[in-house]
């Protein structure tokens, strides 16, 4: 079917960009400044949602702005895969923008203007990446995202933050300079274009295997990066749970589906090799998570593990597994954001970061810990939460593809998930409170409401997964 031409993808990006500008201009009027983010989030979500029916009907929305090089345009294209990423990001921005106001005010954080401005810009970059029509446009947004999240990582400006942010930038920029630039140049050289083509841009070009192998092997590694450091504030950790790491995985999917094409990946035997690599990641990261007492570190390693599910779904090359992987983008986002919100809520209310100190805190923060429990269930994959749906499809896909080994990986990792998540809830609700604990620990409304909302979403996506399944099936064909 013919693509629709519309300016809406651009508007969705511009809204967040303008929000960042407005935040900078309103730096001296705090209340007004704080209102900008939620407002922009709602408008952005409206734009994204307005495009959903067209995409569900199997059409794409195209907008070519100008030519950069022969065969390379600065262009947007809204398709099913981009829609999954964009709807998740824009919807969660609404919750996150309210939550961060509560968080920043509760802790009386410094440099709030910088924080909100970078936050809004990173959302613009995430949605811009989701709607990119070619690798060039995607890489522009990808780099913008890396850069504007850098100030969020060094936000605290203490020794730990500088060390972490340095590592963060070295990994991200190192990977993009050493791999992305070369890959782009090589792809352009071979194909004369950088467009995303359903079925693969390089399909049928006889692309040289060695460099492509290097590229696809490094892509999943990408997920390791954010976990290499634990973001200093839970709010930025949330960005790394949703925007940055999802962008990495999204890029990997784009490259696998629309640059190589599943046919080429299969022909070169890359699928299985990558699948083994990500399986290794899934299990190792889970074991890492098991050993962490710092709640945020545990969540971060869990993210590494969970993101690999998404890549696994793509490289198993069975349509059912692909659907599972793509749905997991949404499911993991909803659940993991809930868990990060909870970690921040606990920290705001009590100043506690280590799980071993959280004994009995569930009685003081019932909403927070209740939401945490629901998020954990979804991560483990218990019905009727969203995690069940994606794991079901993934499991079905591995059986269908005759790869029982990956079924075992999935089951083993579910056990590990349970092993590192459930003790947190257990300690919080049934642990004995330390005698010296103060009774001032209580829920903060502006923090509790968003985290309950995302917990509800985690269940809702399990009960009504139709929207995401429809989109995912469009991608998987």
């Amino acid at each position, binding site marked *: 079917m013919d693509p629709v031409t519309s300016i809406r993808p651009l508007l969705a990006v511009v809204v967040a960009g303008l929000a960042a500008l407005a935040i900078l201009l309103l730096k001296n009027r705090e209340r007004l400044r704080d209102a900008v983010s939620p407002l922009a989030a709602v408008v952005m979500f409206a734009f994204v949602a307005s495009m959903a029916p067209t995409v569900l009907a199997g059409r794409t929305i195209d907008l070519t702005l100008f030519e950069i090089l022969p065969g390379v345009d600065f262009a947007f294209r809204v398709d099913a895969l981009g829609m999954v990423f964009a709807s998740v990001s824009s919807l969660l921005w609404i919750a996150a923008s309210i939550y961060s106001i509560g968080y920043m005010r509760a802790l009386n954080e410094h440099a709030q203007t910088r924080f909100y401005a970078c936050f809004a810009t990173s959302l613009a970059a995430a949605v811009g990446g989701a709607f990119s029509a070619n690798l060039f446009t995607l890489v522009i947004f990808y780099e913008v995202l890396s*850069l504007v999240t850098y100030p969020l990582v060094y936000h605290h400006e203490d020794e730990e933050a500088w060390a972490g942010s340095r590592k963060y*930038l070295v990994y991200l920029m190192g990977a993009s300079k*050493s791999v992305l630039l070369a890959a782009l*140049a090589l792809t352009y*050289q071979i194909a004369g274009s950088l467009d995303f083509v359903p079925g693969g841009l390089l399909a049928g070009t006889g692309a040289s295997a060695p460099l492509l192998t290097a590229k696809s092997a490094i892509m999943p590694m990408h997920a390791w990066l954010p976990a290499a450091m634990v973001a200093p504030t839970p709010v930025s950790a949330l960005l790394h749970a949703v925007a940055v790491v999802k962008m990495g995985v999204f890029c990997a999917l784009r490259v696998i589906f629309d640059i190589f094409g599943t046919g080429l990946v299969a022909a070169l035997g890359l699928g299985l090799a990558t699948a083994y690599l990500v399986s290794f990641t899934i299990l190792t990261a889970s074991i890492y998570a098991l050993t962490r007492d710092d709640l945020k570190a545990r969540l971060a390693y869990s993210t590494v593990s969970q993101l690999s599910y998404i890549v696994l779904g793509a490289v198993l090359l069975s349509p059912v597994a692909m659907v599972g992987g793509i749905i997991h983008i949404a499911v993991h986002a909803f659940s993991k954001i809930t868990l990060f919100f909870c970690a921040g809520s606990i920290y705001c209310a009590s100043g506690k970061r280590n799980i071993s100190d959280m004994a009995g805190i569930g009685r003081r923060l019932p909403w927070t810990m209740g939401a945490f429990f629901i998020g954990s269930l979804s991560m483990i994959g218990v019905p009727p939460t969203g995690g069940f749906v994606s794991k079901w499809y993934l499991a079905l896909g591995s059986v269908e593809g005759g790869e029982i080994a990956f079924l075992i990986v999935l089951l083993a990792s579910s056990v590990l998930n349970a092993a590192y998540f459930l003790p947190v809830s257990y300690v919080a609700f049934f642990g004995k409170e330390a005698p010296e604990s103060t009774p001032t620990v209580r829920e903060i409304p502006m923090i509790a409401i968003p985290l309950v909302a995302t917990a509800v979403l985690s269940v809702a996506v399990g009960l009504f997964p139709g929207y995401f399944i429809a989109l995912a099936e469009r991608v998987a064909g």
Partner: protein
Amino acid sequence: MALLSLIVFTPAVGALVLAFIRNEQTVRWTALGFTALDFVLAVMMLAGFDATTHAMQFTEARPWVPALGITYALGVDGISVLFVFLTALLGWICVLASWTAIESKVKEFMISLLVMQSLMLGVFCALDLFLFYVFWEAMLIPMYIIIGVWGGEGRVYAAFKFFLYTLAGSLLFLVGVIVLYLQGGQTFDIIALSNQDIPFSVQSWLFLAFLVAFAVKVPMVPVHTWLPDAHVQAPTAGSIILAAVLLKMGAYGFLRFSLPMLPEASVYYSTAMLMLSALAIVYGGLLALAQDDLKKLVAYSSISHMGFVTLGIFTLNLRGLEGGILQMFNHGVTTGALFLFVGLIYERTHTRSIGAYGGLMKLAPVYTSFLALFALSSMALPGTNSFVGELLVLSGGFAANPAITAIAVLGALLGAAYLLGMYRKVALGPVRLPGGAKVRDVNARELIAILPLAVLVFWVGLYPKPFLGIIDASVKHLLVRVHGEGSGQ
């Protein structure tokens, strides 16, 4: 209307006028007036440029020494027109950059700057080999004076080293020019020489002679050692000219002489040239990584970046050459801006040691924001000018020689490392300033000098089509010359 003559000699006329002015402030404004006028003329030239042909445009020819066949011939094509524009743009930026930085002998400085300007424009416009050589050699003198008189503590040594290196190269070039004149039908006409068929054995020797001359200017490793000294000692305007324009002349020499006049030798030596380029990229990057002096860091990064230029040129294919030429322009904009920024902060604090700074973002947010922009442009962030250039160069490189190109990619990685490291130390972290100095943010004059460069960073980065359109026809013509008919790619 002899537009090119006007462009070339307007600054020289300005220099003449300056000689009769006493008041320092009037000197500054007059210099600014003439360079601004020159820029307006250059914009007119660019507006009237026909991008559909490879032929020389705005040509002028008058007999000069008819007995030897020497003519005063000017003209621009797609390869040179961007550099005439760039030189004219940086002319008034250099005047603004020297506004307060030069405190003694202002008049003499501005005269040197304007004479330099005329000679550089002459190099890019000359269509007669003899005329070209006159401009090329004469350029050394004002540059020598600018470094030697207004430079830092080691200025005499640096100026002398600069002079010796380039002079040594130029002498070999002169020998080459004479051989070319005798072999090529006793003419100095660059266009005619570009269509002569010279025997390969002669080409081969000429190529090596030219290589020495041009490699010193670029500079390519291992004849690069004059550059850091010259840069560190030169005043800000000197550094800007050196990086943005003078270095381009070596690469321009390859494009104007080596490739069209010695096509077979160019093909023959291309792999060696690619290797030297990759070496410069990596070695320059490693040296930059080790620097604590801001100016040295930018100077060594220039060596690395110019490696990308020569890499692109000697891929001898369309993408590589177009990328290489675009990268010449980009390097002029970005590195020129970086030297301007080093100059601005040095003017305030009188130290260039990276370790002495910290947290500048809090004191001078506008300064550090623009510094970030140009640092990111220098490391080829997508969306900025250098990314387009490097993408084309590497794309051409993978077609020409994948193994060497893969090494060049490492250089790009080093670029990210030293630039981000520098920025983090200078701009972020706790506030630290040398000797408790006070720092004011950029003022309106400085902002005016910065803005056009910032615009070009994004313009080329996001919409390079007009720029590539200008060079396209000439590069295709050049490729036909190098590879023979029917090889437009």
